[in-house]
């Protein structure tokens, strides 16, 4: 029971991640019509279009004049994460998150973190890769990141068959396990960078209560985007950086209820 409580958000996230994939898979394999397509672009209940705004950005840079369905779909997704979900895509939807979370968990169990030498890759490198994606899309006339995206490969792979994409995912796993803590999702992934940017001002946020904090630092240990928890033990405030994936790991590992999900606007008024 205690274990369940300590992993309540993780279990919920896995459920959401697997359900989304299952719905896509069912649409392809058995003709379900709840959620068709994949994370690139999909159709909800045969009517509501959804589309990946970052893919759209690259395609537009590549010079494509796109159809209404994807434009509307990308607008819906952008609005949802910008107003409500923040960078929630990374923690709650993206299938690569499962892979990198397993790598990170193994890291803790095997105590790999303790032998790690300092690797100097900055967390801002994802924004450079994001900029490069747009620039290369414009130069080559193709959506540059979509050609190499492990997210797309795994997502499509689970729905349509993966091929050598499995090797790419194994690469991401090994990189996160032996190469660098939170290497892919926390440093390299431009889609994560993109959602960090648009989710910056979202309503759902983690809030820290400094008075309850006993400085055990379990939250910063578990957090995949450690720098966003810089205020822990110092000030009572919201996690404001866009890089927070709203995964809720910090909330559930805290023994003192010093962290919780809150809605930014309402809390500010009160």
């Amino acid at each position, binding site marked *: 029971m205690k274990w369940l409580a300590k992993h309540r958000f993780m279990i919920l996230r896995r459920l959401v991640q697997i359900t989304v994939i299952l719905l896509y898979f069912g649409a392809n394999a058995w003709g379900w019509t709840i959620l068709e397509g994949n994370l*690139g672009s999909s159709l909800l209940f045969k009517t509501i279009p959804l589309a990946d705004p970052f893919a759209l950005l690259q395609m537009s840079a590549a010079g494509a004049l796109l159809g209404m369905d994807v434009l509307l779909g990308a607008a819906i997704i952008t609005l949802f994460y910008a107003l409500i979900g923040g960078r929630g895509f990374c923690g709650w939807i993206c299938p690569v998150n499962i892979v990198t979370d397993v790598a990170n968990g193994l890291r803790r169990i095997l105590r790999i973190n303790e032998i790690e030498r300092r690797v100097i890759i900055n967390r801002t490198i994802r924004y450079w890769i994001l900029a490069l994606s747009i*620039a290369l899309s414009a130069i080559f006339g193709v959506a540059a990141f979509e*050609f190499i995206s492990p997210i797309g490969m795994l997502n499509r792979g689970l729905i349509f068959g993966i091929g*050598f994409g499995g090797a790419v995912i194994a690469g991401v796993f090994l990189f996160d396990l032996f190469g660098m803590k939170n290497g892919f999702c926390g440093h390299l992934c431009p889609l994560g960078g993109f959602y960090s940017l648009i989710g910056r001002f979202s309503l759902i946020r983690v809030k820290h209560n400094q008075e309850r904090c006993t400085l055990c630092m379990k939250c910063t240990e578990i957090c995949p985007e450690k720098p966003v928890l810089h205020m822990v033990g110092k000030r009572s405030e919201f996690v404001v950086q866009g890089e927070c994936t709203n995964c809720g790991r910090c909330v559930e590992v805290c023994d003192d209820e010093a962290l919780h999900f809150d809605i930014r606007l309402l809390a500010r008024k009160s």
Partner: protein
Amino acid sequence: MSKEKLPPLSERRRFLLQALQGLGLATLGALTWSAYLDEASASSLYLRPPGALAEKDFLSHCIRCGLCVEACPYDTLKLARAGDNVPVGTPYFTARMIPCYMCKDIPCVPPCPSGALNESLVTKMAKDGKETLDITQAKMGVAVIDADQCIAFWGIQCDACYRACPLINEAIVIDASRNERTGKHAFMAPRVIGDVCTGCGMCEKACVTEKASIFVLPLAIAKGKAGSNYIKGWDEKDEKRLETQTGGGATTVTPVSDQKAVDYLNSEEF
């Protein structure tokens, strides 16, 4: 031997060096990425679904959602996996495995959310101005015959491709000619009418030789181009082009061109 101790880096120099390092690494990444993109988007020996834009535009428009693949009732369309040598995540088909069966209602085209599969490319306008989907407008590729290996060219009776063709006698015709070797048989050789062929690949699927001797290639590869300077004088419609032809207004001037044209056949002696 005493080493002269260098003064610490100034703030300004540190900043410039860091900027240079970032720029250098970004360039390194960009070059590697560019090389891959160039390579991955260069090959084009695969067939796209009906109504697909020209390959270059198709690559910038396709969001890789797989809705066309899910709509295909014959499992003809596949979403490229890494290692398939097709830009990853884009739809394609292999005619020898499963050809396009040219569904009358073309279920794969309307679901495309981005316009990469374009209804206007498979739409026919009737005389009364009514537009209807028409799969025979599709140009997925064009069938090409290897006359050396096609057994009909050897004089063996086979019209498998001709019979399999959904546009029988329009896209594939049979040319009969006398077989001088036996003196009493005919060659019944298939010939593809390139302007009619949709590239569905049913002929390739039906071909009885060990490796298909009739196969579909993408238009960009299989088609030559005569150039606009050649005009069919015997074709009324083609000759109309003369009227709209603009030669750029260039007139070649040489010492000879100053003289009037001479009717040398009649006025001069040989």
